[in-house]
């Protein structure tokens, strides 16, 4: 029997409020399932479980605020014997009083299956939490008919659970449980102040001709429906993820006075939130994703961030961050490293510039790429090579 703990979702998190349980005693879970939603300064985070087994007991009730490390639920691992009595008296499921062996054999039937991976609403019309979607599906409720009380009108479990006859009170509508802008500002302030206190930043910039990327995007996207179109951002993320494989000094964490390089490349993507604030959750193993996979992962991440639904692992483990202020933004941005990471790469807007190619001046699409590095871990020389490598990879977008 193991305890499922309140996770640390960032270096500055001390406590979290349990706002939604997506499992109940007797439910089988597997590694990676989203089992609860925790409210933090960064908004509502979907918390995944890291062990497979069966939920034995819920230890923390809804709306309780508890410190990081507090046991939230008790989990019985695969194959562990069950205790004689059900742990919770309220409405035990039929399976719970049966011996474990039987339950295991029954798995195909008892499975409550598809993992709680939210299907992003492609149209962006209905924003709803995975739990809300599941409940709506179970009850045959059309989500478009439900008033959302979450951020940007996102539909929460409680919205679906509410009796149909009673519409959402207007006063509740904008309040929502997640994305408190002031709390998020406090979290950003704490992380950024710590970064500037502790991390000796150095800054580099490098201009890159991205005409090849633009041509590739135009050709690739011309034949595709909007669902499958690729944005420049996906190319830059992939190029950076591939480049950092060769430059491990920019990928990992600086903790307890030493650098721990990370084998995995989880790219934190800085995503701004309307009304203020930003967050940089991870696109996991970005170096191993195809451009198409990376693009759909990016779309999914942006939509979930803006609907206030990020998963715990995405908050906790980016190994390097990338930030772009978009096509209307500035020429260059110099990022502040998000501790305990050791580098952040920035992309300015792509602009037409006079550029010398093969001895002649011509108009080219050029972007200014920057990097802020942690001087405790790396030096400008390595940083320059790293940026040059990204630039080189962007010359052959078809190979990304």
């Amino acid at each position, binding site marked *: 029997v193991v305890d499922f703990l309140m996770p640390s979702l960032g270096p500055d998190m001390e406590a979290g409020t349990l706002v939604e349980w997506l499992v109940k005693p007797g439910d089988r879970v597997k590694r990676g399932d989203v089992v609860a939603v925790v409210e933090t300064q960064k908004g509502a985070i979907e918390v995944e479980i890291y062990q497979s087994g069966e939920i034995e007991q819920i230890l923390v009730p809804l709306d309780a605020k508890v410190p990081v490390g507090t046991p939230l639920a008790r989990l019985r691992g695969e194959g562990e014997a069950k205790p004689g009595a059900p742990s919770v008296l309220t409405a035990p499921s039929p399976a719970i009083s049966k011996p474990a062996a039987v339950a295991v054999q029954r798995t195909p039937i008892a499975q409550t299956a598809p993992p709680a991976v939210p299907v992003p609403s492609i*149209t*962006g*019309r209905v*924003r709803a939490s995975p739990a809300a979607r599941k409940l709506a599906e179970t009850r045959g409720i059309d989500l478009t008919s439900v008033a959302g009380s979450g951020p940007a009108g996102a539909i929460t479990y409680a919205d679906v659970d509410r009796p149909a006859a009673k519409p959402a009170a207007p006063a509740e509508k904008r309040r929502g449980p997640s994305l408190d802008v002031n709390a998020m500002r406090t979290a950003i302030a704490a992380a950024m102040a710590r970064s500037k206190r502790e991390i000796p930043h150095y800054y580099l910039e490098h201009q890159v001709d991205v005409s090849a990327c633009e041509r590739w995007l135009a050709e690739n996207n*011309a034949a595709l429906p909007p669902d499958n*179109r690729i*944005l420049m*951002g996906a190319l830059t993320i992939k190029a950076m993820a591939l480049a950092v494989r060769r430059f491990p000094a920019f990928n990992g964490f600086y903790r307890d006075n030493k650098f721990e390089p990370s084998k995995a490349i989880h790219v934190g993507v800085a995503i701004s939130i309307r009304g203020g604030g930003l967050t940089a959750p991870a696109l996991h193993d970005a170096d191993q994703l195809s451009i198409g996979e990376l693009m759909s992962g990016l779309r999914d991440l942006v939509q979930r961030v803006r609907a206030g639904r990020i998963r715990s692992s995405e908050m906790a483990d980016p190994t390097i961050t990338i930030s772009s202020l978009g096509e*209307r933004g500035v020429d260059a941005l110099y990022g502040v490293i998000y501790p305990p990471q050791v580098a952040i790469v920035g992309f300015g807007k792509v602009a037409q510039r006079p550029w010398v190619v093969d001895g002649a001046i011509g108009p080219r699409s050029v972007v200014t790429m920057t990097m802020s590095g942690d001087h405790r871990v790396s030096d400008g020389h390595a940083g320059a090579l790293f940026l040059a490598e990204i630039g080189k990879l962007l010359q052959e977008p078809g190979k990304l």
Partner: protein
Amino acid sequence: MNDIDIRKIVKEELGNIAPEIDLATVEPTADLREAIDIDSMDFLNFITAVHHRTGIDIPEIDYPKLVTLMGMLAYLDAKLKAAKK
């Protein structure tokens, strides 16, 4: 595809992206990206949603025609009319 109210659809879908904006206050000839602060991802999501709701195909090469509210409505109206013929 007969009675598609394109104004309503545009209003709803832009509203999903920028819920705090009252489109009635947006200049019809203003660049929407600036007027309501949408980025390339927002715009792609908008195009995707309009495509799903109306069946209108909006190739990337036509994006510049959709940067203002007026241009966008004219473009979508024309596309709908062409589809009916």
